[in-house]
Structure formats: C-alpha cells, structure tokens
C-alpha cells in the first residue's frame, strides 16, 4: 500500500468538500493508495481573520494585484508550516488541485516554497487551473507547463483527470499527462462515483455535495470559453445521476446537491428522465423526501422544454437554477448565439412561477453590439419582470463586471470582425477596456455608466443583487486604472 496526500488549494468554495478531489480519490484507492486530504482552502478560512481571507481571495481573483507585505509574509509562513507536515509525512505522492485560474497565484507561491523543501515523493498537479495562465492575452504558456519547465512538479495532468491519473499511477502513457493535449472522456457513466469518506463534513459551511451530470455545453456562446475545457458535450445517464444522489444521501446523510454542470438540461430527454426517477423515488421513500438540488440551466422555448419538465423538477426537489440570460435584448442574445427568444424568457418565468423554482439570472452589460436601444431593453425588462422578483422567482439578478473578453473565446477569435483591439489591455485574466469600431459609443466608461444605471434601477425595484460590493469595488479598480489615452491610441492605430 502506498500513501498520497491530496491538497486543495484556494480559491474554491468552503460550503462543501472538493468534488475534484472526491472524483480522483477512487482512482488512487483502486491503485492501492491510502489517501489523506488537506483542504488548504478551508484551513485558510479557519485560520486567518475574515478580512485577511477577503484580501487573499481578492488577490487570488486577480482584482488585487499584490498582497500587503505583512499579509504576504503571513501567508507564505502559513504555507511553509503546512508543508512541514506534508514533507515529514514521507508520502509517495503529493497531488495538488489547482481548481481554476483563480488558484494560480497561490499555486505559484505554494510550489515556489515547496521547491526549497526536501520532499522525496512524486509531485503531481491537476485541475482546470493548470491549463490556464495569467496575463492570458500575452502569455501562451499554461501554468502547468510553467511548473513542469521550472521542475517544480514531476507531473501535470491537463484536462479531465480520471483516466489520465489512472494511467499515470500504472506507469502508462495517456494524452493529457505532462502535455497539454488532453482527450475528452467519452462515456461519463464509466467513471467511478466520487468518494467523500476522507472529508469531515462538519467542517464545511453547508451540508451539501456536488454532482456532475454532464461536461461541456450544447451552445457555443461567443463570450464563453467552456469549449476550451470540454470541446464536446457529454451527458451521464439519468439512472447513473439518480443512483449517485441516492447513494450519497444514504451514505453521508446529505440532502442538498449542487450540479457542477455548465447546464443541467443540455439533454432535455435525460433531464426529464432524471427528474422523473427522483420525483418518484422521493414520493415512495421517506428517507429521500428531503433531497433537493440546484444547478445551471439553459432557457429554451416551450417546444423544447414542455411544462412537464418544470413540474417534475419541482417534485424532484429543484431549489434554484442559475440561468445565463445575459441580455434582455433579443438582438444582443442573437449576436451572442444564445439561441432563445424573449417569448422563451416569458415562458420560462411563467413555468418557474408555477412551480416555485427560484432563478439567479446572470447578465452581461455592454456586449460589443449592445446599442442604447438594447440597453433600454434591459431597463424595460427589469421593470416588466418586477413581479417575478417580488415573488422570489427571479431570486437574484447579477449584472456582473461589464462585458470582458476571455482569450480564445469565439469573440476573441473574431475580434477583427468586431474591430476590437485585443493586444493593448491589462494584466487581468480578460480584456475589460476594449472598444469596438462597430459600436464606438460603447467604450468602457459607457459600459460602466450602463452598469450603474441598471444597478440603481434594480435596487429601487427591489431586486436582490448578490455580491454587489465586490463587483462595484472591482469596477472602481478597473476604472481607476483605465486611461482614455489608451483607447484613443488604439483608435488611431485602427483607423490607420
């Protein structure tokens, strides 16, 4: 029997255990590893002051460039202290999860510090963050490649980890091991069910577990980079999802589940089947009756999503859905390739009202083609849908940080068509201060103006807008760094 320590780096949720680690623990165990989990993300929140955690999270999220000197020292000393335990454990393998781009800064710090220690085992790193990079617009090398080149880790797993990890532990080759050319897992039903036995649920802030029903998306929205992670949409069977929920309910006494999917209803038929199975089981078995779930959902018209689907979701325990509406202007949504009409939004809201399904609406202010008339559509819809906010059907409305462009998204790739300069921007993970020759009135300042107007109206009409403090603070930071001259220069270059 070999030993492994698995580390979850910030920044992830503290509501529930890491689903990423739970997914790979069965792979370690079937390859004769005994596993210990260290959730540094959770321990950070337990061992630092709330305001310190807030600063560290802002730093991780790239909205704060540098930590204050004292806090940086404290954080590095804390990491070193944690490493002492890891090094002295003499385990065969250290596996580190870099969950997203927002884990890269602390990952760099972690591995730089670990490089000075005399850890004798093998160091493996994985997670979506290893495929990303900071300074995305100027740096083509991923964080994982940087770590490999610097010899700070022995192996990097790019892309989905389950099959690659299994091969790595058996000394076999597989795409995605140490090379950023992973292949997608075809059949999600073949993967082992996540194993949470090594987590102490009482330490997490909510008794809730994550579940993955699909990977990828059925849409190709122009602003979204999900296709980079999962080029194809892959759906688990309804039966398999249902069995996992029931098993985890009975094994861990967990009733609340959160789907990690980009969209839970990518396959409408499978989604209906899943809800049917769960609703029926809940009606028959008292042990299951309190099961509920949340997830991200795609809006479609009535032809595609019949009323029965919403009814089954209600009886299956759907407690909240997050929907990327993005804009209440149909024309803007068409440009985004969202592929649903205003009538579809009306229908969706009617059904959610009928079955008390709360929605979090995700919005984007200032898409490159958004005109003042489109902005007015947003303002009008906020007024029109007030009743749904009053009744909790629009449970929350998120206007976000204004339109920003991520590298390698369809929009980024067609920047020339939109006459958007993609070179000039800042050191953040996306471009915020772009301007398009096709819609010159919509510069960053105008986007912020519209964002604030929507904030004011939404607040006055009683909408709940979560995390607004952070968002407004970030907008103010962006605004402070914004230089009008930069755009003017871009204009001159573009015109020339």
């Amino acid at each position, binding site marked *: 029997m070999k030993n492994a320590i698995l580390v979850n780096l910030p920044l992830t949720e503290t509501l529930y255990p890491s689903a990423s680690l739970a997914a790979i623990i069965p792979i370690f165990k079937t390859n004769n590893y005994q596993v210990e989990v260290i959730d540094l993300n959770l321990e950070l929140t337990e061992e630092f002051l709330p305001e310190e955690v*807030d600063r560290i999270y802002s730093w991780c999220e790239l909205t704060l460039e540098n930590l204050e000197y004292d806090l940086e020292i404290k954080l590095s000393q804390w990491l070193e202290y944690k490493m002492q335990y890891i090094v002295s454990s003499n385990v065969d393998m250290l596996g580190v999860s870099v969950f997203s781009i927002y884990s890269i800064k602390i990952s760099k710090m972690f591995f730089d510090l670990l490089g000075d220690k005399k850890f004798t085992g093998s160091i493996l790193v994985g997670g979506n963050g290893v495929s990303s990079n900071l300074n995305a617009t100027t740096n083509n090398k991923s964080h994982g490649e940087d770590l490999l080149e610097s010899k700070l880790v022995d192996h990097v797993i790019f892309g989905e980890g389950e099959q690659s990890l299994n091969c790595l532990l058996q000394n076999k080759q597989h795409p995605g091991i140490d090379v950023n050319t992973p292949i997608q897992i075809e059949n999600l039903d073949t993967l082992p069910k996540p194993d949470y036995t090594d987590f102490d649920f009482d330490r997490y802030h909510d008794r809730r577990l994550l579940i993955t029903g699909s990977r990828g998306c059925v849409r190709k929205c122009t602003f979204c980079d999900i296709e980079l992670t999962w080029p194809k949409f892959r759906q688990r069977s309804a039966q398999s999802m249902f069995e996992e929920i029931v098993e985890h309910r009975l094994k861990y006494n967990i009733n609340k589940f959160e789907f990690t999917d980009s969209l839970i209803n990518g396959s409408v038929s499978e989604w209906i089947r899943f809800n049917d199975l769960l609703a029926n089981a809940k009606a028959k078995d008292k042990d299951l009756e309190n099961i509920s779930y949340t997830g991200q959902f795609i809006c479609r018209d009535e032809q595609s999503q019949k009323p029965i689907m919403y009814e089954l979701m209600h009886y299956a325990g759907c407690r909240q859905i997050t929907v990327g509406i993005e804009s209440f202007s149909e024309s803007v949504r068409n440009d985004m390739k969202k592929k649903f009409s205003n009538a579809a939004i009306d229908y969706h809201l*009617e059904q959610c*009202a*009928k079955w*008390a399904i709360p929605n979090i609406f995700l919005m984007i202010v200032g898409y490159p083609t958004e005109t003042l008339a489109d902005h007015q559509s947003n303002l009008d819809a906020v007024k029109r849908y007030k009743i749904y906010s009053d009744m*909790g059907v629009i449970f929350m409305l998120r206007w976000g940080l204004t339109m920003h462009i991520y590298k390698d998204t369809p929009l980024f790739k067609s920047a020339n068509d939109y006459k958007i300069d993609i070179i000039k921007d800042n050191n953040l993970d996306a471009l915020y201060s772009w301007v398009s020759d096709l819609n010159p009135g919509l510069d960053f300042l105008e986007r912020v103006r519209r964002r604030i107007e929507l904030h004011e109206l939404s607040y006055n009409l009683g909408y709940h807008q979560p995390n*607004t403090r952070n968002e407004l*603070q970030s907008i103010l930071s962006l605004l402070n760094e914004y230089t*009008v001259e930069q755009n003017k220069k871009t204009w001159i270059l573009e015109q020339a």
Partner: protein
Amino acid sequence: MIIKIFHTELRNAEIQIDNNNEKSEIKDSSATWMVPYVPESVEIMFEPFGITPKLWIDNFLINFWLANVQQQDHKLIIPIGNDFFDRYWVRDGQGRLQSLGVNPDPILVDKIVGRNFHQSLVDDIKFKLDEKRNLS
C-alpha cells in the same frame, strides 16, 4: 385574481370571500376560483381534512410562510389585499437574512441577500466616470 389549490386526494373545496361561499368543481385533483377583485383575505375549506394542498395565486405557487397563510386541519386562511406581493417580498428578504443566523457577517449578507445599494461606491464610480470623461 385566480386562486387554485391542488392535492391528489382532494375531494371537495369551497372558498369563502367576504362571507360568501363558493364551491368549486374538482378537476384533475384541483379547484380553481376566479375572483373579480382583490379581497382582503380568503378562506378555503377542503376535504379530506389533514391534507396540505398546493396553493397558487395568479399562477404563482405560494410559499405558506412567505404569504403568512395559516393552515388548519380543514382550511387555509390566506391574507391577500393589494399589498400581497409587497408583503411577500418583505418576508422573503427577512427569511434570507434569518437563514444567515444572528449578527451575520456583512460580506455574507451582501453575497447571499444582496439588498445593499452601496451608496459610497456608486458615488465614487460616478465621480470617477465624470473625471475620466472630462479627460477625453
């Protein structure tokens, strides 16, 4: 105003508005009443006793706690009035706050409840917008 109740075992249902009683035909385990005005409150008597019917008002499935509906063995007492939806919203906000416990962390309140205007941040942003605009 449309008021509807549903329960798979529902046999009889009668609504009382301003001392007037009106029965409803039970169709697909549900009873529906069209009320031509907004009453201050209504009572719905049902059989069999002891069931908890689902309740819709104007096609909104109603949460009994948020709507302050009193459920008795054989009837629902539903305060309505012109401010029904406003009161529902207020209770909803109170419920969200209460779910965070006593003296919740303001950051968590902002994240979960999200009913702060953040006047000083809005002012700062507007000031900065003016400043940058004047520069251009």
